[in-house]
């Protein structure tokens, strides 16, 4: 799982460098988020602008991260969703669960 991790303001920003987030790489992504949580990075922004394709496993990994952040009194927010990826959040009604921002700057400023 290729991703860039940077600290910006009050949050850690994880930018995925994979075109697909699916059952092949979602567990690895989950583990990477867990490592950050265990390192005390409880406010997280996931930048999905490079992700063209997400399946239910990818959505499940993000839900897992959301629950982990919330349980640690932090928050996990999303940004940069491509239209087809955003439609998957709507189909599964997860757009009601996550705070979704157009870009990293807006997401980071919300903390």
């Amino acid at each position, binding site marked *: 799982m290729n991703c860039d991790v940077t600290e910006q303001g009050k949050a850690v920003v994880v930018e995925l460098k994979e075109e*697909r987030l*699916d*059952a*092949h790489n979602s567990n690895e992504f989950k583990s990477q988020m867990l490592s950050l949580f265990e390192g005390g990075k409880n406010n997280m922004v996931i930048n999905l602008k490079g992700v063209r*394709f997400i*399946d*239910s*496993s990818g*959505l*499940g*990994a993000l*839900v*897992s991260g*959301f*629950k982990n952040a919330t349980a640690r009194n932090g928050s996990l927010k999303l940004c940069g969703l491509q239209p*087809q990826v955003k439609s*998957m959040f709507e*189909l*599964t*009604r*997860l757009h*009601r*669960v996550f705070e979704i921002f157009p870009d990293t700057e807006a997401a980071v400023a919300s903390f």
Partner: protein
Amino acid sequence: MPDKIEVNIRIPNKTRYLSLIGQIGENLALALDKYGGDREELAYHINLVLTEAIANAMIHGNVKDPAKDVHITIGVDNECLRIRVRDQGQGFDINSLPGPEGNALDDHGRGIHIIRCLMDEVTYRRLDDGNVLEMVKCLSPVPSSKRDTSSE
């Protein structure tokens, strides 16, 4: 009369092949000669339902056994796109799976819901040596109602 196409693929029970088969389905949908709807959207959805169905077969049907394989058939015939995904496992009750109205914060259980939303017919049947998940998408005028059936 549209062209008849049938693609048969057998892959090892490894998730690294998901993107390959999803892309084949996407390219096939893009190449359909008579489709009046949003072709890009259809292609994306075919990639997605293939990915969901094959991952389901690998993880739940074949219980991650690397010695097993998954057999996929993609066919275009009589203005329908038909996908069959066969596993070699014990199967599961498709009707016991939660929909989106279930626990919104479950990590799992959205795959079949996504398939049901995007395809016109979804069936899951027991065979002598495994199970087959069959999904049909009508390529001509949108059907008046979606059908969702399953058998034992």
